């Protein structure tokens, strides 16, 4: 097992190298002069030349790539052209917000999706099955930006129940430890901040989690339906076990493998979806940062953020692969 993890970690290197190459090419695939596209039409020739020199655009491509790689390896992700702040620093500030959002969205999606899928399968063709699966169909088809705007309109504008943007109200004070506000407020026993940050998290979390939730629910249902017909479920019933352990232990653990695959893949989707969600809800995370940087043509930022997001995605997939072994002992990695 340990061998396998090490082998997989070594395999990360070529994957991430590929990502750096793509992220690097981004700057050079843009038609025209990158310096011009960054500074705009009104920039003078001197300003452009200064930027070109600063970014090293006058060197041969291979040299530029080598330099970029050297920086990345040493943890230097470059500086924002606009603000002159180091990208690594900005990401360190924003990643926890994105983590909080995606973990919450995924947590809700897994909990509700799996539960709904199991109940729908056990009570196949019941009203619950019909309603939840129709709901799931709607959930999959709903664009995040539309859902997000509708939620803001209803819960913030009309009903005034939930705040439309941000992570925490200004008047609330919170000592940060992990920068995951929900967790920090629990750690510091600050229930006011907990409730406030929860209210801020709820809408973006649900908007982001809806599509994965719907996909997980449908996948769980079909997987459970298949497993419930297996001989070992008949054996479990014939042993006199109660319904609960038969469904949630014997059946679900077998049915979970395909669901796990979907969850792993949906994580990648969530990182993409976070760009939209964070933009709509002004969530101060990486997604919104990327969005603003793309608008501002801040290429070093975009380049480095892509690299970080790609690395997270690859690591999530590695964790998924390792979890397979827990759910199915027949899988061998050696």
């Amino acid at each position, binding site marked *: 097992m340990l061998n396998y993890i090490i082998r997989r970690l070594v395999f990360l290197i070529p994957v991430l190298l590929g990502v750096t190459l793509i992220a690097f090419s981004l700057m050079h695939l843009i038609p025209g002069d990158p310096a011009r596209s960054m500074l705009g039409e009104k920039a003078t020739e001197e300003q452009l030349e200064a930027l070109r020199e600063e970014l090293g655009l006058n060197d041969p491509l291979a040299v530029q790539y080598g330099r970029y790689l050297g920086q990345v390896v040493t943890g230097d992700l470059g500086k924002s052209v606009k603000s002159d702040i180091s990208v690594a620093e900005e990401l360190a500030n924003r990643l926890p917000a994105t983590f909080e959002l995606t973990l919450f969205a995924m947590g809700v999606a897994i909990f509700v999706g799996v539960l709904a899928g199991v109940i729908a399968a056990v009570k196949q063709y019941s009203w619950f099955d019909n309603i939840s699966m129709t709901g799931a169909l709607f959930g999959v088809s709903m664009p995040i930006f539309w859902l997000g705007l509708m939620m803001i309109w209803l819960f913030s504008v009309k009903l005034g129940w939930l705040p439309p943007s941000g992570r925490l109200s200004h008047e609330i004070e919170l000592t940060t430890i992990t920068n995951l506000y929900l967790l920090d407020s629990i750690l510091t026993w600050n229930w006011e901040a907990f409730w406030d940050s929860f209210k801020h998290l709820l809408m973006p979390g649900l908007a982001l989690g809806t599509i994965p939730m719907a996909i997980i629910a449908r996948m769980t249902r079909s997987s459970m339906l298949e497993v419930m017909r*297996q*001989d*070992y479920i*008949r*054996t*479990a*019933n*014939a*042993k*006199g*076990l*109660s319904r609960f*352990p038969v469904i949630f*232990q*014997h059946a679900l*653990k*077998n049915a979970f493998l395909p669901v796990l695959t979907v969850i792993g893949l949906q994580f990648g989707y969530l990182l993409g979806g976070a760009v939209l969600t964070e933009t709509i809800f002004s969530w101060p995370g990486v997604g919104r940062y990327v969005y603003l940087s793309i608008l501002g043509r801040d290429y070093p930022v975009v380049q480095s953020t892509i690299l970080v997001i790609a690395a997270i995605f690859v690591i999530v997939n590695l964790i998924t692969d390792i979890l397979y072994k827990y*759910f*199915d*002992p*027949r899988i061998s990695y050696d």
Partner: protein
Amino acid sequence: MANQDKKNRQVTGTSLLEVRNLKTHFFTKAGVVKAVDGVTFDIKPGETLGIVGESGSGKSMTAMSIMRLIPSPPGKIVGGEIEFEGKNLLSMSEKELKKIRGNEISMIFQDPMTSLNPVFTIKKQMVETILTHQDMTKKEAIDRAVELLDLVGIPDARARLNNYPHEFSGGMRQRVMIAMALSCDPKLLIADEPTTALDVTIQAQILDLLNRLQEEMGMSIMMITHDLGVVAEVCDRVMVMYAGQPVEFTEAATLFDHPKHPYTWGLLNSIPKITKKKEGQKRLEAIPGLPPDLRNLEAGCHFAPRCKHAMDSCYSKNPSYEPCEPDHFVRCLLYEEKEEVLSND
């Protein structure tokens, strides 16, 4: 030889299980499938009853009806009675049934490859059965599981407990299934084709094991099989089923020596026999045709279209299930109408 073994065993008169006129139907879009249609038999304490028939004759569904594990919908027990030690299983609540399943009546299945849950260790699967029915600590349950694995002949039982099903061979898995089924000293073990999926040598081992365990523990066994060789090996009495109905029911020895129903004749004739050439080899006789579609059964004897001895009345009159001799039930008009009984050829 098998029958000599059985002399050591106590078979007493009163019935442990009585099934009367059981009817289990499946309500599908294509029509009502009468999978079990009027099955009557009893099992005495300590006895082994064989239930024989082709695939689809209702053997397994009879067993699942006794366990009350018919998939519903579409299946439903629409009539009859099942009494276990005088208690009516058909009127029991789900909660009462759980105390019977795996405890007083337990079951082993055809395919040991798929009957054990692949993602749990043997320990988990055995211990949960024991703890469901018995007041024990987890440690005691583990000790009991080791004892049971020893009993069914799994070497190095304590270490094997932590293995997963895929780490056992087919025969060993069936032994694990048997150990699990016996974990609460059941009074009745239903064995649904327990040897069908196994190699011939392993089959014999498993049958021997069941015989031995029955002698030691004294439970009754309901042995479902399509193999008359298995019947000869282990059964005291046999019921032959065809198209959801019993067609003949008697002592195993009687069935082999004096079979009455034409379907039983057909079954016996289709067993290959090793004979010397000069004793006259015969071509193996198959029963012509196919079992009827259980969705639209026509009037008359269901076996008539395949029966060599069918008379005109067989196609219109339903034969009743009556004893033609004491303790020998048969469902055939040949005996009802007192026609000259055809000799078995």
